[in-house]
């Protein structure tokens, strides 16, 4: 015995080697499940110590190099002699199973032997710049087993996945293990998994679903296809959780989407009778929601869907307009429920946007564009702006009488009106029509709900700015102030000691807030003249420097008609009252006489006489008794007139001033365009033609859509008036002339 150290004898290579071999054999048997006793601590210690000694002995008995090579050799030999053959003699699933099991065994073997050979890792492997034991062991497996097997393994795996896709059961746990094996054999990187498996898997997936897509698209309807597509995507996602690596998910999903959804998009969405348009037509909200879910993840995938949506809504809207147009030609009256129906349509498709299409901006935009198209169409020559104003007028009038309309209905109707107005480009037309009708409501109907009127103005102001509603708000304020004047006047009359005479009120309107009214220099009945004078006197005491202009065309009168059978109270306009009072002194008057006596214009007089002699209530008898008024007619008080009521309102239909409203607004627009152009040029100083035009349109878009030709004309006009000039160098540019 040669003593290397004080304690222990030297272990020579052959001896040490055989001790190790013994343990390795034992280990192999254990791992292969053969009958073998387990390692006891002594054996374990012996192995460890043997190797420890062999590593720490002084050269030439330092066997670190040889031990390292032996370690590797053990694995290499095992792999070549045992492991690989055992795998290769099997097929399919059995082969996979063997592969998996051998891998597990290898892992344990590496662990155990690393423990035995541990001392090498303490100093040797690092110093010699060699892979550590674990790595060395794994690398052996990779090089001598994995490399030879992976191709076949991959084939089997893909075949199994295919089976599962065809709804057959497979051993998922096995696949998970094997794929894990692929991953781990990449050492630090994923490239083994990716190149040896994933790549092929994705290819196979693509061709699989490509075939499916082709057959489905031939045989299925769009909803059916979508359900299958959705189901497939769901299953593939599950597949990932079951046995694929999570990195594969995005690539997998994209691949499937590409074949199932992207490449067939046109055929699918445009499928006759079941595609996008058909689903919209048939209100198939579930299918549409599915379509959204499927195409949402695909870049630009939703564009064809939103386009179909836009076209559908536009056509629905156009149909509504056409129907209203047809009804109007038949009935000669434009139904105002077209507005109600547009509101309902808007509500219906807004639900689509929020629910089926998850509030996606593309669909908001599509809805907006659709509405902007048909909301700007005319119905029987009446613009939507006017129809909307008429709708509001009727709505407010009705809500006064119909108490069943609760506050929330009123609130929601008002909101719907504001929403609809947003789509109408001629907002200034709406404002003007609305203002005129508001004036009538306030002055002639008297009974108006101040709160409701203010609510809508508040909402309009919030949406379209203060300029939109300032005049109308002024009108409402005037009505409040008028009340104060009414009581003030009453007090004044009381204090003056004069007899009260007629019951009489004057409503003072601020010019500018209210629409402009034509007035005539009507010759009032005497009784009324003194009332006017006393009010003027009163008003003088309240304010100086204000001029009162009396608008008789808007006044109301209550007359007592002393007819033969019974007296009836007649509620008439001031003009009508003036005409009737003329008959207090004379039995019979001709048209000409009335014209001179009253100082009314022909148009007004004819209207008034018509309402009193040719309409529902014949207060006057006309000779000849034709249906229209002519300048040669004569009139007589009809004492025989009667009615079952004691008090009747004799309406005087208003003049149709639609054309005037449009003209007035168009004039205002010209001023607005001029002002806008000057404002822009003042700040820009120098500006090109296109820029000026587009900025002008932009600034005015809140109220109306200016015509480009009109803008050009205004620019030329401003050049003529020397507000602007063309740049001498560049005739396409304008300069501000200070």
């Amino acid at each position, binding site marked *: 015995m040669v003593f290397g150290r004080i304690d222990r004898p030297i272990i020579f290579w052959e001896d040490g080697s055989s001790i190790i071999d013994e343990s390795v054999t034992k280990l192999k048997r254990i791992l292969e499940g053969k009958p073998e006793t387990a390692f006891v601590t002594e054996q374990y210690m012996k192995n460890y110590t043997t190797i420890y000694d062999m590593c720490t002995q002084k050269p030439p008995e330092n066997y670190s190099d040889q031990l390292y090579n032996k370690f590797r050799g053990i694995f290499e030999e095992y792999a070549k002699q045992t492991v690989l053959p055992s795998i290769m003699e099997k097929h399919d699933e059995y082969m996979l199973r063997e592969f998996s099991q051998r891998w597990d065994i290898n892992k344990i073997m590496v662990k155990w032997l690393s423990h035995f050979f541990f001392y090498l890792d303490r100093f040797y492997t690092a110093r010699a710049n060699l892979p550590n034991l674990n790595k060395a062991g794994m690398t052996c497996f990779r090089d001598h087993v994995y490399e030879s097997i992976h191709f076949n393994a991959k084939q089997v795996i893909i075949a199994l996945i295919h089976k599962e896709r065809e709804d057959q059961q497979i051993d998922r746990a096995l696949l998970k293990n094997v794929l894990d094996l692929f991953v781990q054999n990449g050492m630090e990187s994923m490239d083994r998994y990716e190149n040896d498996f994933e790549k092929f898997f994705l290819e196979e997936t693509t061709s699989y679903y490509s075939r499916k897509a082709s057959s489905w698209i031939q045989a299925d309807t769009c909803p059916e296809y979508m359900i299958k597509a959705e189901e497939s995507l769901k299953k593939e996602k599950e597949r990932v959780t079951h046995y694929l690596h999570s990195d594969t998910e995005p690539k997998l999903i994209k691949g499937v989407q590409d074949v199932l959804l992207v490449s067939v998009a046109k055929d699918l969405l445009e499928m006759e009778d079941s595609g996008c348009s058909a689903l919209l037509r048939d209100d198939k909200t579930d299918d549409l929601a599915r379509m959204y879910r499927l195409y949402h993840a695909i870049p630009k995938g939703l564009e064809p869907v939103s386009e179909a949506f836009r076209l559908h809504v536009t056509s629905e809207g156009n149909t509504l307009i056409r129907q209203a147009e047809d009804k109007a030609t038949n009935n000669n009256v434009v139904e105002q429920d077209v507005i109600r129906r547009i509101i309902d349509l808007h509500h219906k498709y807004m639900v689509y946007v929020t629910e089926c299409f998850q509030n996606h901006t593309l669909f908001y935009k599509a809805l907006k564009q659709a509405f902007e198209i048909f909301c700007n169409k005319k119905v029987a020559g009446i613009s939507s702006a006017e129809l909307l104003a008429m709708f509001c007028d009727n709505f407010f009038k009705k809500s006064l009488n119909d108490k069943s309309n609760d506050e929330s209905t009123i609130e929601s109707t008002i909101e719907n009106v504001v929403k609809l107005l947003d789509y109408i480009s001629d907002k200034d037309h709406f404002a003007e029509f609305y203002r005129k009708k508001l004036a009538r409501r306030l002055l002639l109907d008297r009974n108006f709900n101040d709160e409701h009127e203010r609510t809508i103005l508040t909402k309009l102001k919030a949406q379209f700015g203060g300029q939109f509603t300032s005049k109308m708000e002024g009108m409402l304020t005037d009505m409040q102030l008028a009340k104060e004047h009414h009581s003030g006047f009453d007090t004044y009359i009381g204090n003056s000691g004069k007899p009260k005479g007629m019951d009489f009120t004057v409503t003072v309107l601020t010019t500018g807030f209210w629409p402009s009214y034509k007035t005539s220099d009507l010759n009032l009945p005497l009784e009324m003249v003194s009332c006017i004078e006393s009010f003027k006197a009163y008003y003088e005491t309240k304010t100086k420097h204000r001029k009162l202009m009396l608008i008789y065309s808007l006044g109301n009168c209550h007359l007592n008609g002393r007819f033969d059978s019974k007296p009836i109270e007649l509620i008439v306009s001031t003009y009508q009252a003036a005409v009737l009072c003329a008959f207090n002194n004379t039995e019979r008057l001709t048209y000409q006489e009335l014209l001179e006596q009253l100082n009314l214009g022909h148009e007004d007089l004819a209207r008034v006489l018509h309402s009193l002699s040719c309409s529902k209530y014949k207060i006057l008898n006309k000779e000849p008794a034709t249906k229209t008024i002519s300048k040669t007619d004569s009139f007589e008080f009809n004492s025989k007139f009667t009615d079952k009521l004691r008090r009747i309102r004799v309406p005087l239909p208003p003049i149709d001033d639609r054309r005037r409203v449009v003209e007035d607004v168009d004039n205002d627009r010209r001023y607005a365009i001029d002002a806008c152009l000057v404002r822009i040029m003042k700040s820009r100083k120098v500006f090109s033609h296109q820029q000026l035009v587009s900025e002008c349109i932009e600034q005015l878009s809140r109220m109306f859509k200016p015509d480009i030709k009109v803008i050009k004309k205004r*620019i030329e006009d401003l050049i003529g008036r020397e507000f602007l000039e063309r740049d001498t160098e560049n005739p396409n540019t304008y300069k501000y002339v200070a």
Partner: protein
Amino acid sequence: MRRSAASKKKSDSITTSTTDLFRSASSKATTKEMDRIDHLFNQYANISSNLIDPEGIEELCSNLEVSHTDIRILMLAWKMKAEKQGYFTQEEWRRGLKALRADTINKLKKALPELEKEVRRQSNFADFYAYAFRYCLTEEKQKSIDIETICQLLDIVMGSTFRAQVDYFVEYLKIQNDYKVINMDQWMGFYRFCNEISFPEMTEYNPELAWPLVLDSFVEWISEKEA
């Protein structure tokens, strides 16, 4: 005339007599020239107003052997910087003829082709074109010219160089109803149009640019005609 003072200013007694002689000779020549110019003026001018009036201009034209609607008369007016259509003041007459170095009718006649060349130079023509418009404004605050006059003016001023455009535009102006008068901006626009846009293709024309509206309508009318 103060011109004599100008030529006599700072007559240095030390300067040689030859220059002196020369100066006085040239000034004499100038004086003579001016006299002849004035003499010519008086031949056509109205005695009481001391202006050449339309009658006088007609006579002048016949002596020059040009029609009174000939563009060369207009060019002459331009050269004179004449302000009022149909009238030449003495100052304007002197200005024009001196510039043309013409003091007889014959010299004036001979000067006309040269004048025309000068006016037709690119650098001058735009100015001349604008002048032609202003020349036709007869009232004080007048800013535009009636269609009929415009049509005549176009023919005179642009007829020889842009025959087709002028003919078409004149036809258009006569049948349309939107415009009763044409202003300076529109007038100049037409000049630009003739120079920049190929005719009758008009492919470069873009109504979205700052062309006057009347030209937009004109182009539209032509396209409709062709269709």
